[in-house]
């Protein structure tokens, strides 16, 4: 049995929180922001419980089919949003991440939630860690995309209710650095696992190449912030472009091309 009621309840909480943030953007009432945070936190707790339960039922971290990866990506997005919200009270600045979260959940909820039996090759903690770090990294890159977009809005259409440019820049750089660090762990673990399973640690397939590209791109971004000319607007644009690379690596390759990481 895979109880999806928890996930449905989480989706309701997330939807209400997005509505609360949107209303807060218009009415600027601080209680609305508190309510929204409460709703996101409740949604996250519900979704975490659902994840824990499915993990318990399966006996392994369930991330082996499209439903489970959408679910896990959405959980990672909510975790990342909460981290920034609790630390910096970003409020509606992370709305894109919550929208993306809702989008993923709406696709996931229409798919078969049954947990498929684990293929022997995936029966290793390397696999669970590889996937967990990859989605946590992706979630932070999505956050950087959101903050980058907001930076551009604030830069060209200033709004006194949005965080100021220097804070947005700082948060964007933080999201990129954290995402890069987690993605590095994802690649290192994936490489060790590949060596154990196939006898080589780097595979020249399109998914392997693009994962390396994501890493190289964000490694470049970890340095671009030191160069004055790239700070601010340039960095925001790079964050947006980088997320395009991430989306292609996660979705495009699995859906459009033949790969050893297909999406079912």
């Amino acid at each position, binding site marked *: 049995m895979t109880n999806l009621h928890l996930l449905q309840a989480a989706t309701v909480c997330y939807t209400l929180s997005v509505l609360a943030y949107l209303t807060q953007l218009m009415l600027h009432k601080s209680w609305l922001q508190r309510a929204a945070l409460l709703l996101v936190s409740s949604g996250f707790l519900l979704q975490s419980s659902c994840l824990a339960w499915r993990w318990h039922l399966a006996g392994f971290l369930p991330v082996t089919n499209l439903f489970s990866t959408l679910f896990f990506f959405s959980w990672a997005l909510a975790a990342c949003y909460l981290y920034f919200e609790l630390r910096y009270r970003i409020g509606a600045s992370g709305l894109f991440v919550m929208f993306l979260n809702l989008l993923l959940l709406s696709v996931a909820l229409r798919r078969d939630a049954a947990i498929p039996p684990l293929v*022997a090759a995936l029966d290793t903690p390397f696999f669970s860690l590889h996937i967990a770090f990859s989605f946590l990294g992706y979630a932070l890159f999505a956050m950087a995309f959101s903050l980058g977009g907001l930076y551009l809005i604030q830069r060209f259409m200033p709004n006194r209710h949005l965080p100021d440019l220097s804070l947005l820049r700082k948060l964007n750089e933080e999201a990129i650095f954290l995402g890069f660090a987690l993605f590095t762990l994802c690649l290192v673990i994936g490489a*060790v696992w590949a*060596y154990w399973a196939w006898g080589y640690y780097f595979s020249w*397939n399109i998914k392997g190449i*693009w994962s390396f590209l994501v890493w*190289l791109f964000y490694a*470049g971004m970890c340095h671009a912030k030191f*160069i004055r000319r790239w700070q601010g607007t340039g960095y925001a644009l790079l964050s947006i472009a980088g997320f395009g690379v991430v989306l292609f690596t996660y979705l495009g390759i699995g859906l459009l091309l033949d790969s050893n990481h297909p999406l079912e």
Partner: protein
Amino acid sequence: MVMRIWNLFCSLKLAIWLASIATLLLMGGSLLVPFNGRVFGSMDQVPFATWLSDTASKQLSLTWWFWLAALIMILFGLNTLCCFLDWLLHIRSRWRKAGEYLLHLGVVLVLLAYIWGSFGGWRNPGLQLRVGVPVALPQWPGHTLRLDEFTPLFSGTGPPQDMISQLTLLENNEERLSARVGINAPLLHNGLVITPVSFGQEPVGLRFAAPDGTRHELLSGGLLDLKNGSELRLLRFVADLQQRSDGSLYFRDDRLGVPAYEVHISYADGGSWRGWYLPTKGLPRQLKMAGFNLQPVAPVYQSYSVLTVNYDPGARLAAIGATLMTIGVLLALVSFYRKRTRQDRPEI
């Protein structure tokens, strides 16, 4: 002059340029990979350097971007190494960046290890091993691999849960090491890595019924004492024996077709006969004379193991690099906020 080159290779701007160009080249080029299996399909089957010399160099119109990207990655590696050395030279004032620079060193080591493995390593992506039959490792003279036991493990229907091969590595016929290899449980030994790929089953003989109801498996190399004092030696078993129009014989693949034994009979009176016995086509006169009276019942199958046997001299260096990267990233993570509070960052 030397100083200028040193400064150039310590420059962050060069790093960003190189990373950007490599990224763009690999992005464009990689889209050719899934559509040109003939050229790119073998990239994981052979060491990278072999692929470059045997395949990529002959298909420059499809692979030029690869050469360029490889060159840029080498420059980038040098760039990263210089940055690391520059940090070492200034370690007294910059020790707080240890995390970042362990990461840099780790990247350089992994790159070096990959180049080393590409030139000094070899790959054997589908070595078939049969129980008890040592197979020489062609790229490693004097070394053979022997499969002592093979057990595929199933739980219900579907793919196997594991494929356990008990292996012995021999060097000049002396046993060097023995190990069990299974899914996610490779044999690792001084750069040698052995992992399971798949397995198959092949007919190795037939089961026969005797008039008294007992069953006998007749396999290659077997010896049978016949009633009237003759002796039947089974020289070999062939799964499918075919005859050409000119009468010559040839063996088709390992699937069961027209099974055949090449046999040698030593008669009690001292005579002998060597020839073919095709159980599905009836008993030859010579066998009948020797008192052979068994009826074929069913084929006997034996599993064989298919393994990847690779050698990568750089694997240990890569592991050191990966460890440094991991420690570096973790250190950089935990020190990130403290350094940010101190405004501890270069502005260029």
